[in-house]
C-alpha cells in the first residue's frame, strides 16, 4: 500500500507543479491587450487619432486581411506595392513612418485585432462600478483553477485518509499487528510535500520580488511644480528638444534650466486651457503653478527679469538607471532615430509624468533585438560591407533588416563599462 501512497503524492505534486507553470503560460498567451499596449499604444488609440489613426473598425476598412497583416509588419515595404489606401493613409498622417514589427506572428496580430474588435469604450466615471466588475471577471479563470486545485487536493487528501483507514481495518482483520498510526501532520511524506510546495511558492515570490527590486514602473511622484507635458508637448505641440536640449548631443536629455522656461513664460503668465487635474482628481490651478515658476526665477510680471537671481528647481527624478549602466540619449534619439514615446510612453498625454517602462535589462535587450539601426541612412554603417552585400542578395531578410543585435548591440560592453 505504501508505494501507492508515494505514487499518489508524486502525481499530486506534479499536478500542482504543472498547474503552476501552465498558469504562468496562460498569462503569457496571446493577450491582445498586452500586445496592443506594448506595440501600438504609443502611437494609436482605439477611439481617437494620435500619431496614427484611430483603430476602431480597422478590419472593416482594410478589405484584404493579408494586406493589413503585411502593412502592420512592414508598412514601408507595403507602401511600395502602391496600395492606394495605404498611400492615402500615409499622406493623411503627414508621412510619419509607422514603426516596423517584423517579429509579430500572425497569431499575435490576430490577437491584437481581436482586442480592437472587442474593445468597448470605457464607461463614464459614473459607471466605475461596472468597470471594476469587469476587472474581477478577468481574474475569474485563475481563481477557478485555484479553487479546482484546492478541491482536488482536499479530495485526494480525504481519499488518502480513507485509504489508510481501510488499510488499518483490513490489517486488523487479517491479524497483522497494528502499527501505531502516524497522524498526518507528523507524516514525513506530508511534511516533505508541504515543504516542497512552500519552497516553490516562496522561491517564486522571492525571485520575482528580487527581480523587481529597484524597478519602478509606474512611478509618478509629485513634482515641485505641476508641470504638464500634456499642455506643453501635447496641446501646444512644443518640440521635445526645445526644452530637452541634451537629447541630441549627449548622455542626458537634460531637464531644462529656469531660463529656458522663462523664454516663453515671460509672456505667458496665465493658464487658460482646459482644467487640469492631479491623478487623484484634485483640480490644479495652472496660473498658480506658473507663479511658482516665477518664485524660482525671481521674476515679477511687468518688470525686467534678472536671470542671475534665478534658483534651480529641485525636480524629483523619475527615470533612474543603476550606476553600472551606461545609457546615452544621443545614441538612441540622434543616431538611432528612436521616438521619445518608445521608452517614455505617451508623454504628450501625461499631466504628471509616470515611468512608462520598467527600464529593466530584459526590456532593453528585447528592443535591441527587434529594432533596426539606421543601416542605410547613416554613413557610419557603410563599413559593414558584408552586411550590405548580404542585404542586397537577400542573405539577410530585408524585413528583419540589420537589428541593433546584429551589430553587437546586445554585448555586455555596449552598456556596462
Amino acid at each position: 500500500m505504501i508505494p501507492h501512497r508515494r505514487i499518489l503524492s508524486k502525481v499530486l505534486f506534479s499536478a500542482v507543479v504543472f498547474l503552476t507553470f501552465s498558469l504562468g503560460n496562460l498569462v503569457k498567451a496571446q493577450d491582445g491587450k498586452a500586445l496592443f499596449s506594448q506595440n501600438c499604444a504609443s502611437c494609436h488609440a482605439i477611439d481617437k487619432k494620435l500619431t496614427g489613426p484611430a483603430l476602431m473598425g480597422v478590419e472593416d476598412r482594410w478589405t484584404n486581411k493579408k494586406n493589413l497583416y503585411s502593412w502592420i509588419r512592414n508598412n514601408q515595404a507595403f507602401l511600395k506595392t502602391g496600395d492606394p489606401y495605404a498611400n492615402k493613409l500615409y499622406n493623411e498622417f503627414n508621412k510619419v513612418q509607422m514603426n516596423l514589427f517584423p517579429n509579430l506572428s500572425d497569431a499575435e496580430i490576430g490577437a491584437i485585432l481581436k482586442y480592437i474588435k472587442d474593445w468597448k469604450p470605457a464607461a463614464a466615471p459614473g459607471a466605475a462600478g461596472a468597470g471594476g466588475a469587469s476587472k474581477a471577471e478577468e481574474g475569474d479563470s485563475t481563481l477557478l483553477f485555484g479553487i479546482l486545485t484546492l478541491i482536488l487536493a482536499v479530495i485526494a487528501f480525504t481519499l488518502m485518509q480513507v485509504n489508510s483507514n481501510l488499510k488499518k481495518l483490513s490489517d486488523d482483520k487479517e491479524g497483522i499487528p497494528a502499527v501505531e498510526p502516524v497522524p498526518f501532520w507528523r507524516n514525513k511524506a506530508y511534511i516533505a510535500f508541504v515543504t516542497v510546495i512552500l519552497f516553490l511558492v516562496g522561491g517564486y515570490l522571492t525571485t520575482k520580488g528580487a527581480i523587481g527590486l529597484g524597478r519602478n514602473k509606474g512611478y509618478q511622484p509629485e513634482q515641485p511644480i505641476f508641470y504638464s507635458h500634456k499642455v506643453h508637448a501635447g496641446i501646444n505641440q512644443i518640440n521635445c528638444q526645445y526644452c530637452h536640449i541634451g537629447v541630441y548631443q549627449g548622455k542626458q536629455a537634460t531637464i531644462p534650466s529656469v531660463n529656458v522656461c522663462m523664454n516663453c513664460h515671460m509672456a505667458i503668465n496665465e493658464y487658460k486651457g482646459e482644467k487640469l487635474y492631479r491623478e487623484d482628481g484634485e483640480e490644479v490651478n495652472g496660473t498658480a503653478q506658473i507663479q511658482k515658476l516665477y518664485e524660482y526665477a525671481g521674476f515679477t510680471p511687468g518688470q525686467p527679469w534678472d536671470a542671475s537671481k534665478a534658483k534651480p528647481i529641485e525636480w524629483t527624478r523619475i527615470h533612474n538607471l543603476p550606476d553600472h549602466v551606461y545609457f546615452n540619449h544621443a545614441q538612441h534619439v540622434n543616431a538611432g532615430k528612436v521616438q521619445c514615446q518608445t521608452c517614455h510612453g505617451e508623454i504628450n498625454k501625461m499631466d504628471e509624468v509616470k515611468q512608462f517602462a520598467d527600464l529593466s535589462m530584459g526590456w532593453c535587450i528585447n528592443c535591441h533585438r527587434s529594432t533596426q539601426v539606421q543601416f542605410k541612412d547613416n554613413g557610419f554603417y557603410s563599413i559593414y560591407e558584408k552586411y550590405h552585400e548580404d542585404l542586397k542578395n537577400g542573405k539577410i531578410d530585408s524585413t528583419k533588416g540589420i537589428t541593433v543585435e546584429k551589430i553587437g548591440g546586445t554585448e555586455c560592453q555596449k552598456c556596462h563599462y
Partner: protein
Amino acid sequence: MDKKYWQSFGELNNTEAFQQSAKDEFREELPFEADDKGLLEAKTPRRDFLKYLGFSTAAAAVAASCEVPVKKAIPFANKPEDIVPGVANYYATTYVQDGEAVSVLAKVRDGRPIKIEGNELSPITKGGTSARVQASVLDLYDTARLRFPTIDGKEVTFDAFDKAVSEAIGSGPAVILTSTIVSPSTKEVINQFIAKHPGSRQVTYDAVSYSGMLLANEATYGKRAIPSYRFDNAKVIVSLGADFLGTWLSPIEFAKQYSKGKKIDEKKPEMSKHIHFESVASLTGSNADEKFLHRPSETGAIAVALLNAINGQAVNISDAKLKAGVEKAAKALAANKGEALVVCGSNDVNVQIVVNAINEALQANGKTIDWSSTYNSFQGIDADFAKLVDDMNAGSVSTLLVYGANPVYTWYDSKKVVDGLKKVKNTISFNAKNDETTQLCKYVIPDHHYLESWGDAEPKTGYYSLLQPTIYPLFKTRQWQDSLLKWSGATTDYLAFLKGYWSTKVGGETGWDKALQDGVINPATLPAAAGATFNSSAVATAANNIASAKKGGKIELQLYQKVAIGGGQQASNPWLQELPDPITRATWDNYVIISPALARTLLNIDLNDNGQADAYEVNPPKKMVKVTVNGKSIVLPSLIIPGTHPDTIGIAVGYGRAKEIGKAVEGTGQNAYPLASLNGNVVSFTAADAQIEATGDTYKIAVTQTHGGYDTKQGKRTEVMKELTLSHFQAEPAEIREDREKELAPFGGLEKFEKEGTIYPYYEKPGIHWGMSVDLNTCTGCAACVVACHAENNVPVVGKPEVMRFHDMHWLRIDRYYSGDVDNPNVVFQPMMCQHCDNAPCENVCPVGATNHSSEGLNQMTYNRCIGTRYCANNCPYKVRRFNWADYTGADSFPDNQRDVLNDVVMNMNDDLTRMVLNPDVTVRSRGVIEKCSFCVQRLQEGKLKAKKESRPLKSGENNEWDVKTACQQACPTDAIVFGNANDKHSAITITREENKLRTFFSLEQLHVLPNVNYLAKVRNIEEGAEAKKEEKEHA
C-alpha cells in the same frame, strides 16, 4: 633569438622560488582557517556559514524592502551656452610645476577636471605628457591642500590677512623667494611689487638646479641660459649621465625628438645611435644602444677624454671598458659632425664647459644645439640662494615671501635655513600645502592649484602657453599674483592684469579669446636652428680644474630623481607613489641602489646563488644600509640593480617629506637632499666619498618586480620579446617574420594560423575590429601611459601593504626585461596590458560568462556578473587581470567598512573630495570582481557615437584624424602606441602593421590566443650580431 630575457634574478637563474611563483598568479593561501580537523571542526564550520548566509539574506531582504530612495534632478538655474551636462569640455591650460611648464588640455566633466591630455598645438611637447603631468589632476583634489589663509596657524579672512600683511611689511623691502618663474606676466607683477617696496629683490631657487649649465654657458657663450637641444637632428647622441628621457630639463620634448631617430623605415632601416655613460641605472641609460658605467667623480675625466679623442688625442682613462667606450663614442661622434650631440647631467660648471667644447668641436652649435630659443624653466643659481640663507642668518632680511620654493626640505643644509627663517620678522608663504617651509612661516595664504588659476608661461623664449581656470576654486585660496598686486596697491586683479598684458600683444579681445582657446601662442614661423658665438678661453682652465679635482673614495654616491617623484614636489600624489619605478619596479619608497657586485661584498648576497637570490628577491624585507657622507647619515633599505657601477650607490631625492603634505608621504623613504653639498656656486648631487655599512636590520619595500611573472607549459619567455641589432636587421630584415612562419608552419603558417591552428570555430569580424600596436623601439618606459590609464579608468590605488601582497591593480604595466651581462645588462621595456585575444583563454573558463568577446574584438569584462572565482586571471598567459581584494575606491554603499583593511592612503582615495577625480563614464569596481584593460571602451563608444552623429565612418588615424585614442596612446610622448580599427584599410593601425611587417610580432603567438595587440621588435643600434648570425647559419 636564443638570448635569455629576465625580469628578476630568480628568473635569470631559474631558481626554485621563481618556478614556484611562475606557477600561480595568486600566491597567498586562501584566507580560510585551515587545520587538520576537517571542515566541520574548522573555526568557521558549515553551521556558521549557514547562519551567516541566513542572516545576510534576511538583512538584505529587510534592507531591500525599504522604500526606493527619492532622487532629485536639479538642472541649472541658467544654463551656460557651451555646457551640456554629461558632455565633456576640454579647456587648454598649462601644467606648471616650479619651472616645468607643459601645455595641456583639461577634460572637464560637469564642472570638474578629471583628466589631463597634452596640447597638440604646442610645438614643444606636441601633445606628449609625462607621468607627473598626468597625475597632476589628482593633486587638485588633494585633501591635504591648505583651505584658507592663516596667521600663526589661525584662520583669517582675506581682508584681515591683507591688512595684517600691509601693516607688517608696509613699503619696506622684502625678499621674494621663488622657484623658477616661467610666467612673463608674473615677472611683471613681481617687478611692480619690487617698485612699490624699494630695496626688495627676487631670489630664484630650484631644488634640483641647472646652475652648472647656466654658469658654463655664461662662460663659453656669454649667455646665462640653456639653449634648445635638437635630439631629432642628431644621428649620434652621447649622454654623460643626463636622464633626458626621464627627468632632465624637458623630458617630454626630448622623448618626442628622440623617438624620431628611433622610428624605423623597414625599406631603409636606419636609426640614431645613443651611447650613454652613467653611474646609476636610469631610464635614459636603459634606452641607450650602448651603456658604459663609471664613478660619478669620473664624469669630468670622461668629458675631457671625449674632447681629446674627438680632437684626435689619446684617451687617458685607466678602466679598459670605459676607455673603449669613450673611444667608440668619440669615433661615432666625429664621424657625424653637425649631426651629433653630447649632453651631460652634471651640475659641475667645469664639466659643462668641457661638454660645451665637445659640442663645439662636433659643430653642434646651430644644428643640434639651437640658440634661437632658450629654456626659461630652470633659472636658479644655487649661490644666490646660499647668499640669501647667509643674509637671513645675519638678520638682514626683514620680510620673506615664499612661493613654490621649499628650501627647508630641499636645501642640503636645512638647519641653516630653519635658523635663518627664525630671524626673519615677517615670513609669508604662498605654498598650496603646509610643507616643511610653510610650517615655519607666520603668514600663510595658499595659492590656487594650476587648474584653478589664470596665468601664462613661457617655457622657452618665444613660445607661450596660457592658463585658464577649469573649476571654481575649491577652497578659500587666492592666486599669489593677486596678493602681490594687492600689496603693491594695484586696483586691478591678476586676471585684468593678465588680459591687459596680453591683449595688445595678441590683437585685442578676439585675439585673446583665440589664444585662450588654443592655449598656446607660438612664433609665427618656427625659427631655424641658430648658433651662438663660442668663447673657448674657459675650456683649458676647466680641464685643468677637472684634472686636479678630488679623486673619489672607495664608494661614491649619486643622488638622482625618480621619473615619478622627481624633486618631490608631487610626492603626496598616490598615483605617482604607487607607480612602479621603470628601472627598480619599486613603489612607495626610496632606497639605496647598489650593484650586484657591491651586494656580494657588502651584504653577502650572491645573486648567482639560488637560495640567496630568492631570499633577497621574493621577500619584501630588504637589508638596510647606513650611508654616511660628510658626517651626515641616512639609513635606507638597499635594492640590487644591475647596470649600476660597482663602486657607486644611488639614492633618489624627493622622499621623506613632512606628513602634513598628504597621507601618501607618510612612511615613504628618507630625505636624501642633506647628502648633497655646495661646491662653489653650485649644489653637487654627487659625493666622491661615501661610507656605507650594513646595519643588520631589514625594511620592507613593495617591489612589483616579481609580480605578474608568467611561464606557460607551451612557451618560454624568449617568445615574449623580440630584439635585433640594427646591422642584423639590415642584413636579414625578414628574420622575425621567418621565425614566426617557421614556428607556426605545423599549424597552417602565418596566414592560415587563425583558422587552422585551433579546433574552435572561426568568427566573422564585420564592421570594426579594434587593434593596437606598440613599438618597443620608441617606447622609453616613461610610464606616462600607466598614470593616464589610472586617471581614465578609475584604476584604484591599493597602498604599500597591498602592493607587497601582489595586489597592485595597474591595468597597464611596463615590464622591464634585462638581457646579457648581469652587471651591465641591456634593457627592453614592454608595456603589457590586456591583449584582447580573439581566442581568449580567460573567456572559456569563466563559470558565469562575466568575461566574453565582443564582435569588435574586445575582451569584455562585466563587473556585475563577476563572482570573483579568478579562474580567468589564472588562465591568462599575460597576467593582466586584476582582482579587487578590497573596496579600494569607495564603491561600497557602506562607508568606512574597510577602515582596518586598507591603509590611510587608500582610505583617503575614498574621500568625497578625492573621488571627484573619478571618470563618471567608468564604473567604480567593487570588492570581489576582476578588472582589466578595456581598450578604453568608453572612449570607443564615444568615438563611434560621434561618427554616427555625423553619419560617416569612424576615423582612426586616417590623415591624422582621430575619433578614438586610448588613454595610453594619447599620453605617450613618443607615439609608440597606435590604436584603431584594424578592419579599416586606411586606419593608422593597419598602416603601421603593414609598414612594419617585418618587425611585427605577437606576444606568445604560438598559444593561438590571437592577441589584438601586436608589438614591433626592438632594434638596437650596435654593430654586433650580424656576424654571429652568419656564423650560426653556416654551422647549421
